[in-house]
């Protein structure tokens, strides 16, 4: 996209829309959630959700054009000037996440209809879409806002709607209820820690505006209140991000939720929490303060490496497919955390790039599994046998995403791992490179297990299954988003300029020119 084209595009848009994009981006899904509840018919609510998610995505693109043009966009709610009122502040860092969340929102809604019609009772379908839209609101809100307390508000909106969405899997599998409950307990503890941290920060600085907090911290320097605030915020966000020892809620939550929820959350929820972690450690707290260095070096790095290795091994031993992918998600979060803990601009940029790619590929994998589950009731690794022949398109797209997860060349996952390894080498962390490679080898095994079952084993010849094969066809509506994601996984190998440009700009802005 050339700069001229963007300028033309912006000139063509009405001025009021450009002024209000940031607010509309959050307000649209927020207000359409209750409307979906009133609509009260599953399909009607779905159409509404499609319209809204498309509108949200369009608004995100307009915002993206503005960010490309101006570097960053500010919005003051109620015309209250920044340190007093709530402001939205959009730069390269949020923009990257906004694109992922809004994009995955659209794909998940399209993908969602067959899944919802099958897995959720008719009278719960409209509230389901209402909760989905509220979840989207929360995730967008956390990402877009420049106000520390506002982050908490939206984090709670997204978390509470997430608990509901996960619990909706209860019709299929009662274990979804306990999974949702344990996530609720841990998520609430995380939110409590986070808000205590915000409170301490407010006590230390007297402001809730992120930019203003940073300015005040520059004046105030380092003291015990600020350190306590840092610790509380990092632990709170660590729980939400599923940072390694705090990840126990994640596998069950992803495994027993409705398939569409699994796909949506796997590609957005932890990513948004990771964004908040990056924003707070490097953007709000001073990145060169001693406690921040100590945290990144001595706490985050071992956690990240442990996640990469241990959770990959755990993934290897799973028989339940979605649990396998969930453990792999925690391992992949380790990559992102490693990128953050390297602490250089190159490292942070690589972490963010991996976040982008991982959202694409894990969303695709969960969607693929969802389609298999919808048509053949696939739950276990061995159930995949023979699907490479019976469902070639879905299997091919699934394979693309799987190879991307391994980090095979010609797929997006390769690019981010390459940059991550480069960043680690530049920093002199050769052992991190070994960990990345070891974790990738483990990924080859656990992805390989699925692909082997899919392609190399014949479909078991049972009567019920072959009958099912004729009657159940994968819905096009579900396959299309998966194919889009698979294509994106290939596309972003050859042209990673979009996420790479944003990630680089974000890392530069956070770390000021790339000095370690």
């Amino acid at each position, binding site marked *: 996209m050339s700069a001229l084209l963007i300028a033309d595009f912006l000139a063509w848009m009405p001025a*009021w829309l450009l*002024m*209000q994009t940031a*607010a*509309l981006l959050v*307000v649209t899904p*927020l*207000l359409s*959630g*209750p*409307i979906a*509840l*009133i609509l*009260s*018919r599953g399909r009607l609510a779905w159409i509404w959700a499609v319209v809204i998610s498309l509108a949200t995505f369009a608004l995100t693109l307009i915002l993206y054009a503005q960010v490309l043009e101006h570097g960053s966009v500010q*919005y*003051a*709610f*109620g*015309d*209250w000037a920044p340190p007093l*009122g*709530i402001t939205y502040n959009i730069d390269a860092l949020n923009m990257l996440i906004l694109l992922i969340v809004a994009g995955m929102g659209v794909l998940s809604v399209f993908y969602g209809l067959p899944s919802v019609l099958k897995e959720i*009772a*008719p*009278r*719960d379908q409209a*509230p389901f879409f*209402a*909760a989905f839209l*509220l979840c989207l609101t929360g995730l967008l809100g956390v990402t877009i806002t420049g106000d520390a*307390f*506002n982050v*908490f*508000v939206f984090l*709670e*909106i997204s978390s*509470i*709607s997430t*608990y*509901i969405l996960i*619990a*909706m899997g*209860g019709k299929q599998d009662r274990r979804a*209820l306990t999974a949702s409950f344990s996530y609720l307990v841990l998520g609430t503890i995380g939110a409590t820690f986070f808000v205590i941290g915000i409170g301490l920060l407010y006590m230390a600085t007297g402001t*809730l505006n992120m930019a203003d907090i940073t300015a005040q911290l520059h004046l105030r320097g380092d003291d015990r209140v600020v350190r306590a605030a840092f610790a509380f915020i990092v632990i709170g966000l660590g729980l939400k991000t599923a940072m390694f020892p705090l990840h126990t809620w994640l596998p069950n939550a992803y495994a027993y939720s409705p398939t569409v929820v699994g796909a949506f959350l796997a590609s957005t929820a932890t990513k948004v929490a990771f964004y908040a972690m990056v924003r707070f450690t490097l953007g709000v707290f001073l990145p060169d303060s001693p406690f921040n260095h100590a945290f990144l070096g001595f706490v985050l790095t071992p956690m990240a490496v442990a996640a990469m290795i241990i959770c990959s091994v755990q993934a290897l031993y799973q028989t339940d497919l979605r649990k396998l992918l969930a453990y792999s998600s925690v391992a992949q979060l380790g990559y992102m955390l490693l990128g953050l803990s390297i602490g250089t601009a190159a490292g942070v940029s690589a972490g963010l790039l991996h976040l982008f790619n991982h959202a694409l590929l894990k969303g695709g994998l969960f969607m693929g599994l969802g389609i298999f589950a919808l048509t053949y009731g696939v739950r276990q690794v061995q159930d995949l046998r023979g699907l490479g022949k019976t469902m070639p398109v879905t299997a091919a797209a699934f394979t693309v995403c799987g190879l991307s997860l391994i980090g095979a060349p010609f797929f997006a996952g390769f690019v981010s791992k390459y940059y991550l390894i480069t960043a680690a080498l530049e920093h002199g962390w050769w052992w991190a490179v070994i960990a990345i490679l070891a974790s990738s080898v483990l990924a080859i095994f656990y992805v390989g297990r699925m692909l082997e079952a899919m392609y190399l084993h014949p479909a078991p010849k049972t009567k019920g299954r072959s009958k099912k094969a004729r009657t159940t066809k994968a819905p096009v509506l579900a396959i299309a988003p998966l194919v889009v994601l698979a294509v994106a996984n290939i596309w972003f190998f050859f042209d990673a300029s979009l996420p790479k440009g944003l990630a680089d700009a974000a890392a530069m802005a956070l770390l000021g020119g790339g000095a370690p």
Partner: protein
Amino acid sequence: MILTAGLGVILILGLGGPARRKKKNITAKATTGKVLGSHHVVLRVVSKLMIPIIIVYGAYVQFHGDFGPGGGFQAGLIIASAIILYALIFGVDAAKEAVPPSLVRLGAALGVLIYGGVGVINLLLGGNFLSYNTLNPAHPTHGQELGIMFVEIGVLVTVASVMLIIFYGFTSRHPDISDKDW
């Protein structure tokens, strides 16, 4: 002021969310079915007297919120508690006849819409989202007051409805809305 409004948003949505789920996963124990409290004459008479007063007091707290402690959240709780008292004394079924669950559900959504709708009106009037000054350009302070009043009404409607949703959800064994009603 905006910050308090933001706080309202969490509380509304924080409560609005789980309530919806509870409506779906109702596993509460069966209600006894018979008309409760038929022999508690004192309770019935006193609560009949008290319920209108409680509701009026709720309205007082609502509008007093402009000048002192009070506001939509507290008022919503008070009004909801009046209806819950009615349900405790005269039975849930009677309360459901007076305030049907479908209405409550509509109210929960409507309140959020009122709340956000005020902000959208500001957008249409050419201001930023939530800039209540635009409601009365001649007197910006009056505009602010008007805006907050509408927001508080939205909060009232949602909080009262959500309280009742939670109460109905826990007290009814059967689904609130049968499939035929859709």
